[in-house]
């Protein structure tokens, strides 16, 4: 009897365990309340809006970022490296390889992520139940505009690399090589779709609209040599959407007037910096500096000129000393007529710390300096040494910056591009600027039209468009001196004009590539890069990580010339 009780008890115990165990089985379903998946998030209009928003964010890895400047402005005829440059491979083509240039990885990775998101959205949007037909059209227009925008950067930077319009399903370990023409066919198709479906205005500053798509299409036409279409499209944007050139070139860079009538499309960095792209524990895939970093890159180290009387401050900016103008760029300006020199470059730095100090570091006599006294002057001209030594401030004229061959003799003190400086930053050390990055502004449309007119041989028309730009650029009273005639118009002149108008605005490399002038002008004007540049370098090396990761290595190969 006693034994029976035991047996029953054991059975009961086992039964409890088994029943409890069986009920546990459903515990093996995974619960993830803090995570989101695309199936859930992108299933309705509200969720889909977040996809479209996100599709814009990948532009922030290029515009206003060091990596973007390094591939769009550097390696051209107008810039060379300051002593702080970290991507001299891109600035000078010095051992440029996919394995040693992380800037290329960041852009490649993120622009393809942008394409993937656009592809996902375009393939899903038809199934979003609570969108109206009009909303669908608008959002698909935006996604297609962005896809075209991303693909243009990809195809121009790397040539005929991977292309798809479908989001990969599951894990994709191969990549294809697609002809450049295929990219452009899709770019044109997407832009036409966008123009047909987008609204012509938006209340969300920075969203794609018809004129945005048209302006970009004008650039695409010019790029592909479709000059008549380029002229027509540029004129369409110039005439029909209420854009005007600001009266003064310098006003373009005023932080108080950053959203102005000349801007066609900008990356709208928020003044609330937490809305921007700085890497954080909440946004680990962001950018390591975040927001607009253009203000950091082009400044000379003014805070090393004379530490006793000139220290780093907000107005003068945080000098990263990455890039300095090639001598050629300075020589392109006639500063007595053209306001764009003084509006684009900082040449004088003033005392911000009163002290008795050796003010002119070339003569070593001490004086008393007050706040506001000149401490440093950088000139685009060659000055008389005795004159410079007679001054109480330190002068860096051309002879103290560049050698007779045009190669800088020192790379710390020089005329500095100031377009992107931002004195609204909270502190001198703040790396993030809320300055919008102008991706397209009206002046470019004139320059597109001018270049297209030139290419079809209409030099008069080209001069007409150029003069519109030059008139605005003239120092008041010097308008006549700025005017050119059709005989002045050459391709080099147009490129010089573009440099004067757009230097630093992340277009230069594409301009040179489009006009087949990249290698020629580098060899002629940028002695640092001339030593290294090769004819195959009209495309950049594909990141080695991509090459390493593909399983179809015989099909997906590195661009020619690179290892």
């Amino acid at each position: 009897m006693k034994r029976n009780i035991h047996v029953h008890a054991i059975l009961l115990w086992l039964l409890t365990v088994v029943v409890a165990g069986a009920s546990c089985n459903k515990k093996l379903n995974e619960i993830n309340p803090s995570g989101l998946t695309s199936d859930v998030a992108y299933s309705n209009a509200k969720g889909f809006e977040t996809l479209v928003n996100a599709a814009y964010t990948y532009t922030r890895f290029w515009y206003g970022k060091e990596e973007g400047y390094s591939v769009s402005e550097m390696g051209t005829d107008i810039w060379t490296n300051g002593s702080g440059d970290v991507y001299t491979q891109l600035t000078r083509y010095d051992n440029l390889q996919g394995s040693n240039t992380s800037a290329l990885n960041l852009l490649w990775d993120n622009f393809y992520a942008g394409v993937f998101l656009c592809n996902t959205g375009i393939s899903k949007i038809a199934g979003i139940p609570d969108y109206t037909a009009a909303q669908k059209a608008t959002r698909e227009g935006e996604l297609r505009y962005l896809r075209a925008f991303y693909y243009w950067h990809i195809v121009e930077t790397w040539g005929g690399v991977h292309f798809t319009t479908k989001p990969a399903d599951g894990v994709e370990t191969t990549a294809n090589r697609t002809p450049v023409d295929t990219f452009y066919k899709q770019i044109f198709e997407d832009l036409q779709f966008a123009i047909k479906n987008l609204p012509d205005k938006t209340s969300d500053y920075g969203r794609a609209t018809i004129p945005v798509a048209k302006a970009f299409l004008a650039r695409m036409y010019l790029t592909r040599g479709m000059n008549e279409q380029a002229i027509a499209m540029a004129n369409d944007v110039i005439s029909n959407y209420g854009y005007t050139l600001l009266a003064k070139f310098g006003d373009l860079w005023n932080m108080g007037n950053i959203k102005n009538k000349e801007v066609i499309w900008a990356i709208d960095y928020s003044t609330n910096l937490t809305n921007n792209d700085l890497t954080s524990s909440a946004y680990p895939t962001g950018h390591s500096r975040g927001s607009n970093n253009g203000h950091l890159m082009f400044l000379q180290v003014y805070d090393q000129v004379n530490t006793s009387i000139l220290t780093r401050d907000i107005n003068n900016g945080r000098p990263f000393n990455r890039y300095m103008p090639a001598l050629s760029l300075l020589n392109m300006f006639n500063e007595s007529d053209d306001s764009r020199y003084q509006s684009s470059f900082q040449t004088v730095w003033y005392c911000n710390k009163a002290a008795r100090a050796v003010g002119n570091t070339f003569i070593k006599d001490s004086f008393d300096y007050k706040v506001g006294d000149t401490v440093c002057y950088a000139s685009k001209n060659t000055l008389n040494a005795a004159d410079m030594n007679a001054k109480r401030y330190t002068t860096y004229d051309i002879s103290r910056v560049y050698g007779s061959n045009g190669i800088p003799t020192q790379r710390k003190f020089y005329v500095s591009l100031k377009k992107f400086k931002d004195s609204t930053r909270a502190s001198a050390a703040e790396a993030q600027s809320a300055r919008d990055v102008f991706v397209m502004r009206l002046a470019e449309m004139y320059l597109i039209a001018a270049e297209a007119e030139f290419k079809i041989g209409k030099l008069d028309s080209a001069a007409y468009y150029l003069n519109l730009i030059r008139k605005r650029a003239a120092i008041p009273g010097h308008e006549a001196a700025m005017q050119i005639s059709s005989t002045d118009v050459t391709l080099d002149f147009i490129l010089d004009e573009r440099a004067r108008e757009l230097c630093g605005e992340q277009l230069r490399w594409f301009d040179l590539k489009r006009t087949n002038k990249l290698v020629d002008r580098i060899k002629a004007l940028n002695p640092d890069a001339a030593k290294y540049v090769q004819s195959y370098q009209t495309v950049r090396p594909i990141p080695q990580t991509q090459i390493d990761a593909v399983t179809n290595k015989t099909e997906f190969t590195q661009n020619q010339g690179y290892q």
Partner: protein
Amino acid sequence: MLSKALLVMKITTFFLLIGVLQVSARGFGQDKLNLSFKNAEISGILINIEKQTHYRFLYNDQLRGIKRKVSIHVENAGIREALDYLFAQTELTYRFMANGLIVINEDINRQAVEKKVTGKVTDQNGSPLSGVTVTVKGTAKATITNEQGVFNISVENDDILVFSYVGFEPQELKVGDNTQISISLVSAAANLENVVVIGYGTVKKRDLTGAVVSLKGDEVKKVPAGNVMESVQGKVAGVDITRTSGGAGSSVNVTVRGNRSIIAQNTPLFIVDGIQYSNFQDINPNDIQSMEVLKDAASTAIYGSRGANGVIIITTKRGASGKIRVGANAYYGVTDDTGYPVPMNGQQYANLKREANRTAGTWKSSADDAGIFKADLAAVQNGVSTYWPGLLLKKGSQQDYGVNVAAGSEKTKVFFSFDYFKEKGLLANDYSSRYTLRLNIDQTIVGTFKVGLQSQLTWYDENRRTDNVLTVANKVIPYYTPYATDGSLIKFPGNANQINPLLEELPGTFVNKTNTTRILSSAYAEWKPFSSLTLRSNLGITNGSSRNGLFNGENSINRSTSTGSSAKVTNATQTDLIWENIITWQKKLADHSVDVTAVTSYISNKQDSSYAQGTGQLVPGQSFYALLNNPSNLAIWSNYIGSNLLSGAFRINYGYKGKYLLTVTGRADGSSVLTKDNRWSFFPSAAVAWRVIDEDFMASQHLLSDLKIRASYGIAGNAAVKPYSTNTGLILIPFSWNDQTMQAYGFDPQNGNRNLKWELTGTQNIGIDFGLLKNRISGSVDYYDSKTHDLLLLRPVPTSSGHARVVENVGKTRNNGIEVSLRSVNIQTKQLTWTTGLTYTRNKERITDLVNGINDIASGLFIGSPVKSFYDFQKRGIWQTADSTAAKSFGYKPGDIRVADLSGSKGEPDGKIDANYDRTIVGSAVPKYTIGFSNDVTFGNFDLNVYVFARIGQTFVSDYANKFEPNAIENGAAVNYWTPENPSNDYPRPNINVSRASLPFATTLGYKDGSFVKIRNITLGYTLPKTLTQKIHISSLRWYVSAKNYFTFSKVKDYDPEGEGSFERPLTKLIVTGLNLEF
């Protein structure tokens, strides 16, 4: 009869009065008796006692027992002991009256059915044990042995006596015809040496088939340290333990038999009292009864998907019935760094700057000093020099105070303890305090049904310094001073870019305060319906919650390049729920013994965390307590991670004649982190052992006293798949329209992989356990080979796919090696014992396969090399002037770093230095072998432990050696750099135009041979003699002095290579003194 009795009383009273007068001077109860009689009448012996002492007896001489003849032999015994002994064989009882009068009577109740049993309880060495509880089994009748270990109790012949005593194995004895019993108890510790805790059970050491190392409580607390794993460094063959940070409260890295996993952690599974609990640093070392390390798959496979990295089982102490035991420990020690390299002083730095300018042609002689030093010229000429790291590094301290109590009755057993540990780091405001409370209860409810509870609460109060404060201190230009003339701190000394690192020592400038509470609590119910069957159910809950408050003031290093202060509070909780049911069935049939264990297990793990942060608050003193006052950059975040594991497991131990042993184990695990198709996996193992020593043919030899051969094979897993890895997630991207925050969700760069499964490790193990010369020398040798496949790898996918990476089961690793542990008793005499322990571990770790079978250079993974390998150019020195032509052919000039041209596109040196062909494995962070060598000497009341630990063959990257700034932009290492006059082969030529980042092959400067031998511990202890301590009612008092990490021998100057090269948190040495007390 009555009258005679009265007469005796009267006479006695008379004597008593005199006696009182006589003895009052010497007091009562101190008389010691020596009695030696054979077959003497008790009454006669009583008279003898009266002669020896002041006691007087009063009795009726008609009592039956009083004329009985007995034999007695006691020396130096107390009166009670003597009487107990004397009367044990009779029905006589005694009672103490006032003034030394003892009344003797007859116990009428007992005489018929009961008899008196007397006895003495000793330990193995024959020393009497006082306070032993002697219980008559099944009754409430109990007594306790006296100071001499003697007890007496009335029993029936059928009764069973149970002897129980803290720290000793309980023992039972049938009374039978005995009236005198002498029994020696076996200490629990000694007995435990023969019992080894394995997964879900125990096994006698002789029956063990796997590779298991068992350490007892004394061993785990020998080296004073904040956590047990640090204490046992080098003591377990096959376990590599390193402490790479000397920061307060920093833990150690533990790997068992090398690194198998690449993206997963290689830390072993920790099981505390049956519950998985990875926070071993919470455990008070004084609470530990034993620690077992399960190394081979045959032992770990019972833990299935979690066992592949080895299993460390910690068992805490429990109460016992008998005398209450109270222990107390205290120590206090002072810590100092074990060496810290000194950066350049002002003069050295100025010289570097001159040389750097000289190379560029901007300095020729001191006449040019003004041009290069500018505003700093005066400071340079004054010869000012500040040793910045020295201003930050101070002496720290370590202290520990604990009390523990073990007690119990027959049915209730309790152990509880309290411990306070505090470590002050070498940096100001760097501290960690730990409070640990433990309560273990075992309660028998009825018969063989018992329940119990283990619970531990740990609370930490910690503040840790910035991670880069010493890195900054090593950069600051040495000819600047931290203080202004008014004594205040200068924010940017000398207008430099480096913030003054001393600012963070000001109150409230940098706060990084963490409070952590963790509870480990488990309850069990156990029932033995038959002696062969045990049913047990465990329910464990571990709960951890922590709050980190981080405040970076405006003057903190982290905010020196930003605006305003920043404040952040992070809260995290973690809860594990574990429910396990275990059936154990044991049976012995003739030559066969079978032991079957079956387990069901459910483990649920939930973690959630949240933080809130902001910048720019008005009043710094609000620290992180008023986040609402932060006007800008407000951010909030919360997160949840959960997973469940459901398992069933079994183990069969079979023995034939106790000589041939077989263990078969299996576990099935089902996990929520994998998809339905891959959810369940099975982990089998088998092991055999042959006790050669028990064979007949061994009986005739006397050299070997133990010999066993073991072999096993099994598969265990690594539960490293992170929850939700099978899904592709979205990430929130900060975004706005018109400055209004908007939601934006993009794809996580990591793609989900629905085909994920466990990483599996198959291990074969061959081992031999032996003892020589009656176990004067004993030891084990194990050879193992473990192969891991389905390795979880974060595989890069072409980013053109829209994703950057995916976790996949590709790749393989292999670890094989040999482990030796030896123990010898070199001298064993009454006064002097000397024992030596030696462990030797040699492990060869390498990756055997990766994605597509090719090296993953970007991730630093190389087939044939250990997981943590260094891949770089091979430095051959510096290009010298004489070799300038050769240097030029490679594109370098004298003064540049010279590296080897190892190969080229054709597989041979090609006269070019190229990243593709000329980089190679220059070292690995894993050692070739480690040795632990421990000596224990006891001489009289003194004990001495000297413990040496060696870790040989590893490489580390020295922050200091790497800190060479050729352009003298900031301070760095004082090194022998090349100049035209100084043809050094160590460091290249300084050059104002070359930054460290652009210095060719700069990374080759940092690799150092990390081999070291250190005298990990020297402890000298003195235990007060018992005669002294007993006077103050203390059973044991030991005082000791200990020096930890005091001597390190390595090829690296001024640095302890165990720290793996970090500038931050140098390792510490400790000199400590403490007391161990037992009541």
